């Protein structure tokens, strides 16, 4: 149970870190479909966030 909670916490924390580490993504290149890295990095992380958060939600519910 502890292991599941830890994993859920980790899955929620990773996307937050991805956004907090601004210097990593505050860059112009590479460019995708005309969008600088700064923009498409943050959009892609929305999708990853939803996947990670959903798995975390399932893990939290499992502990019953």
């Amino acid at each position: 149970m502890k292991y599941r909670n830890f994993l859920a916490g980790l899955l929620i924390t990773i996307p937050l870190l991805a956004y907090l580490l601004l210097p990593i993504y505050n860059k112009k290149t590479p460019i995708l479909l005309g969008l600088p890295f700064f923009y498409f990095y943050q959009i892609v992380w929305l999708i990853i966030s939803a996947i990670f958060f959903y798995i975390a939600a399932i893990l939290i519910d499992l502990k019953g």
Partner: protein
Amino acid sequence: MNTIISISVFLFLFIIFIYLGFSGKNFRPGDLNKLHEWALGGQRLGTLLAWFLIGADLFTAYTFIAVPSGIFAVGPLFFFAVPYVAVAFAIAMIVMPKLFVVSKEKGYITGVDFVKDTFNSKTLTILIALTGVIAELPYIALQVIGMRAILTSMLLPFSNIKAISDIALIISFVILAGFTYTTGLRGITLTAIMKDIIIFTTVIVIIIAIPLMYGGFHVAFKAKPVYSTLPAGFATAYLSFFIMSAFALFLYPHAINGSLSSESAKKLRRTSALLPLYAIGLALIALFGILVYAVKPAMSALDKFSPSLRGAMVVPTLIQSTMPPWFTGFAFLGIFIGGLVPAAIMAMASANLLVRNVYKEFKPDLSHEAETKLAKLLSVIFKFVALGFVFVVPATYAISLQLLGGIIILQTLPAIFMGLYMKQLKKNALILGWILGMIIGIYFVEKVNNFGLIAKTLMPTPFGLIFIGVIALAVNLAIVLIGSYVPRLIKA
């Protein structure tokens, strides 16, 4: 001719909107004389419906109008709206199910019900309730501003735009008041689904069509190369904006109201987890503020507006100058009800606070029926106060007050969010923290704006520019923690 086609499509869809709003009554029916049936839809929203409703709550005309206009004018700083949403839902999926469980068990309808029951202080209850109501008012006003931008764009060929759009706004609000009064949250949920379908369709069509027609983001960024990355010195501003906005989001009464209408804590958590997907739409609309630089006809149309109005006109103008008239009517209706639907739920949440957490404090023997009746009535009044506010106060002031609203709503964080986890907090410490947080927040905002019209909420610090909400909340938190725990340590 083009205008007539746009208006016809707009009106036709608006009639469907009205029909959906009123038919909410028969949707999973319940006794609408009970407040939790009217205001929380009887708590029967599953994952998908709650997804639409909370989505409608959070992505409003402010998002469709203010974020793109910020990006248009200032550039990447306003893209903080994207990480803000991701962080907000991370917070929501942890905190809100907890609030939901307590609320369902004890029959709370507002977040302030929880504060009242936990800290047992009349002063604190009323302070937190009024903070919510005051923060909500400019938020509703902004919905109206967004709706007006749509009407202005659509009615451009007419000479007396202001008069026609004011009348149109009043009629829309009467209809809205009519169905929220009779159907409550059910009507709002059904219309929220219609709104989302239209808006998502619009976003997808625009984001594909414009790059094909005008060369897309390559061209836009060539016209505005400085918008490619966040300028040096704005990193702390970006981070503090998105972190604080994320904390503020679920303190707003309408967001709490939306969350509490879910069917179970489990469904609420899954809904929140999936809501970052909704934000992809938001991110793409935000990018319209840059894409418009690639579209020459849109840029020249925008030049005709005064600089103060231009920002709000970015999205409507971009749509109108690139799309066929029928599609413009379709998209405009989406953005228009994208303001109307959230305005309804905000008014409803504010009315609940005023009745349950302010009025009832003075008149505790209020019956359930009288309470519901009063909340319904106040939600109508509140909508018209917000509408009147927009007619009287210039748009720029309403936006200023919205900026301030974000800072003041943060001062309710210790009582609501921390109260869920730390039962030892002292009510007097919470009251004092609230007072000083408010004073410091408002003082610094006034100071950076030289005590004039509020346009900035960033403050220079040794670390760089920081959102003033951080400082005000830090002071509040320090007082709450010291006031709650230090006396205990001394005694021990």
